[in-house]
C-alpha cells in the first residue's frame, strides 16, 4: 500500500510503499520487488527509516523465549521495549539499556545501537545482544553473533538496517528489585558545576544533565544533573499507564518559541529548590518523561523539527561542548530538550555512535536559521574529532559522514560480502552515499 511517512522529527516527508510482513518468509518475499529499508515504530528523528519501499516490522511482535537463569530474552524484532517492560518488569527484569522513549522496537534499538543514561557503565544496547537472525539481501536468513559471522554482527549492530533486516534478537535483561529509581538531583549553576557533578556521580548507574540552553553569560550551561539507581523496595508492578496527555493536532504557530521555552526552563530549574535532592520516582518519569505526552513531536508545528546530537572525544576536552552551548545560547533558538552526558568507551561496531566523550543532544524547529547553526556546529564537532548520531540526523553531508565515521569502508565491505548493496537503502543512506 502507498502512503506518506516521516520520522519522529516530522521532517522530511516521503512517499512510500509499505510492506508489513507477519512471518520471516513474508519479509524475505518482500525483497523481490526492489530496494527497501526496515522500519519499526518510527522513532528515529530524521530520514533513516524512510525509503520509497519500507518494511514495517511491527507485525513481528512475538516474544519467543526467556531464560530466568541467564536473563536472556529472545523476541521478534518488532517487539517494543514498552512490551518488554510491561511483561518482564513484574517478574523482576528490565532492559539493559533504554533510550529516552520506550516506544522503540528491539530491531530499531539494534539498528541504531541506542544508548541510555547508563552508557558510561553498561555501554549501548547491542553490547547486551548475544545473537540475532538477519535476513540478507540474498533472501537467506542467517544467525549472527560475536562468533557466527562476526563481521556481519559488528556491521549490523548500529548499522541502520543497511546490512540486512534484523528479524529476531536475543539479548540479556538485567535483574531489578523495583520498578522505581532512587534519584539524586544536583542543581548546577553553570557548565563547570554540571560537568563536575557528572564526574562526581559517575559511579551511579544512570547519569544525565538537563541543560537550560537559554541561560547565558555566567549562567551558561546551567543544569540539573540527575543520577539514578534501581530502587530496592520490591515494588515491581509495572506502570501500565498509557500516555496521560496527547497533542491532538499540529500546533499552528509552534507553541515552542523563545518566550515559552525560556519560561519553561526557568520554572523547571526553579522547581528544584535545594542544591541537592534525593527522591524515589517511577521508571517512566525517570527514563521516559516525554512518553507521558503522546505525539509531543507535534508541538513543533507542521514543519517539524531537527534533532542534533554529537559526541566529541574526551581528549578534545569540554571546551568544545562549552563552545557549542555558547553558540546555541547566543543564537537564541528554542531548544527545550537539551541533554548532556559523558559516554563511556565505545564498542567495536562499525557505525555505532557512542564513543568515550561528551555528548550533547538538542532540537530546533526546522528552519533556515537552525540549519545554518547546525552547519556551524558540524565544523566544530568535526574539527574536534567528533561525530553526529545517525538516528537523529536528516541533514549531514556525505563528506561530514565519511570524515567522522572512519570505519565506513569496513562497513561497505561487509555490505558487499553479504549481498546488501542495492537491496537495503534509506533516504538517509542515499544522501550519505551508501546505496
Amino acid at each position, binding site marked *: 500500500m502507498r502512503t506518506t511517512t516521516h520520522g519522529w522529527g516530522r521532517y522530511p516527508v516521503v512517499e512510500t510503499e509499505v510492506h508489513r510482513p507477519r512471518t520471516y518468509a513474508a519479509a524475505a518475499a518482500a525483497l523481490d520487488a526492489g530496494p527497501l529499508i526496515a522500519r519499526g515504530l518510527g522513532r528515529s528523528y530524521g530520514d533513516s527509516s524512510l525509503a520509497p519501499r519500507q518494511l514495517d516490522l511491527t507485525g513481528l511482535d*512475538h516474544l519467543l523465549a526467556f531464560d530466568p537463569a541467564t536473563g536472556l530474552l529472545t523476541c521478534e524484532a518488532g517487539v517494543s521495549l514498552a512490551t518488554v517492560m510491561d511483561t518482564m518488569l513484574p517478574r523482576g527484569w528490565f532492559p539493559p539499556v533504554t533510550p529516552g522513549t520506550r516506544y522503540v522496537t528491539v530491531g530499531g534499538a539494534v539498528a541504531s545501537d541506542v544508548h541510555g543514561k547508563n552508557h558510561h557503565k553498561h555501554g549501548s544496547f547491542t553490547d547486551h545482544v548475544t545473537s540475532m537472525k538477519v535476513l540478507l539481501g540474498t533472501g537467506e536468513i542467517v544467525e549472527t553473533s560475536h562468533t557466527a559471522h562476526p563481521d556481519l554482527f559488528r556491521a549490523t549492530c548500529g548499522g541502520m538496517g543497511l546490512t540486512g533486516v534484523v528479524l529476531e534478537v536475543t539479548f540479556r535483561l538485567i535483574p531489578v528489585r523495583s520498578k522505581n529509581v532512587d534519584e539524586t538531583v544536583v542543581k548546577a549553576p553553570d557548565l563547570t558545576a554540571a560537568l563536575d557533578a557528572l564526574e562526581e556521580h559517575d559511579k551511579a548507574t544512570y547519569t544525565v544533565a538537563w541543560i537550560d540552553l537559554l541561560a547565558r553569560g555566567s549562567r551558561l550551561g546551567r543544569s540539573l544533573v540527575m543520577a539514578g539507581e534501581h530502587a530496592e523496595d520490591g515494588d515491581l508492578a509495572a506502570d501500565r499507564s498509557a500516555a496521560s496527555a496527547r497533542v491532538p493536532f499540529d500546533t499552528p504557530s509552534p507553541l515552542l518559541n523563545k518566550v515559552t521555552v525560556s519560561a519553561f526552563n526557568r520554572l523547571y530549574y526553579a522547581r528544584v529548590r535545594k542544591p541537592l535532592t534525593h527522591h524515589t520516582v517511577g521508571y517512566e518519569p525517570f527514563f521516559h518523561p516525554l512518553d507521558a505526552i503522546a505525539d509531543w513531536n507535534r508541538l513543533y508545528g507542521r514543519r517539524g523539527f531537527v534533532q542534533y546530537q554529537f559526541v566529541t572525544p574526551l581528549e578534545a576536552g569540554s571546551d568544545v561542548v562549552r563552545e557549542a552551548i555558547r553558540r546555541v545560547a547566543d543564537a537564541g533558538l528554542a531548544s527545550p530538550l537539551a541533554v548532556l552526558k559523558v559516554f563511556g568507551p565505545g564498542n567495536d561496531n562499525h557505525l555505532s555512535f557512542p564513543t568515550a566523550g561528551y555528548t550533547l543532544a538538542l532540537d530546533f524547529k526546522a528552519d533556515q536559521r537552525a540549519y545554518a547553526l547546525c552547519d556551524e556546529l558540524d565544523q566544530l564537532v568535526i574539527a574536534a574529532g567528533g561525530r553526529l548520531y545517525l538516528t537523529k540526523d536528516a541533514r549531514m553531508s556525505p563528506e561530514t559522514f565519511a570524515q567522522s565515521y572512519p570505519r565506513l569502508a569496513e562497513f561497505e565491505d561487509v555490505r558487499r560480502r553479504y549481498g546488501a548493496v542495492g537491496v537495503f537503502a534509506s533516504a538517509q543512506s542515499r544522501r550519505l552515499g551508501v546505496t
Partner: protein
Amino acid sequence: MTTIAVLGATSGIAQACLRAWLGPEVSFRLSGRSPQALDRVAADLRTRGGDTVHVETAVHDLTDTASVVEAVDWIFGRGEVDIVLVAFGTMPSQEDADADPQVAAGLLTVNGSATVLAAHLVALRLLERGTGRLAVIGSVAGDRGRASNYLYGSAKAMVATAVGGLQHRAAGTDVRITLVKPGPTSTPMTDHLRGGKLKLASPDAVAADIVGAVEAGRQVVYTPSKWRLIITVIRLLPRPIFERSRL
C-alpha cells in the same frame, strides 16, 4: 484455574485476546491452521506469562466439516473448558473473489458455514455441561450487504443469525454466548487495507472490548463501540442514497 480455548488462535484479534486473558491461573488450548504461526503464538504466551501459563496447541485446517469436528473434539477431549473463542476467518479481496469462484466459495465456507458449525458444536458441549462462555467473531459487514464486501458480509450475517439462535437455545442456562462485531481492525487479515481511507482499530482495543463483553456475558458487542452507531446509520440509509454511496 480458567481454561480458555480458541479456534483460529493465530488470527490477529485472537492473539490480542489471548494476551489480554493472560494471568497467573490460565490454561490455553489453541487450534489453528499454520503450525509455524501456532508455535510462535504459544511461545509468545509462555514467554509473557512465565512458568505459570499452560499452553496446548493442535493444528486443524478449519476449512471443512471434518476438521471443525475434529478441532472441537480435541478441545473438549482435553478436559473442561470455561471460555471458547471462535475466531478463524479469511478476507480475500472482492477482486480476487470476482476472478475466481473457488476463492468466493472458500470465503463463504470458512467465514460462514465452518464458523457456524464450530459455534454450534461448541455450544452443544457447553449446554451439556450447563455452564461456560462462547464468543464468536462476526462482523459489522454482516449488518447490511454492501458492494465492497457482500460475500464476506453474507457469511458473517449467517453467523449472526446462528448465534442469535444459540442464544435463544441457551436462555435460562448458565451458558453465555457473545456475538462480536468488530469494525475494520488492524490484523494480518486486513494488512492489504492499511493506509487506505479506512482507519483500522487496534487489535488490543478490540480485544479489551471482547474480554470485557465475555466477562459480562453480553449478547452482542460492537467494537470499537462507535460502530454500533455507524452501522445503524448505514442500515437506515434509504436505498437511493445508499446506492450512490461507495461503502
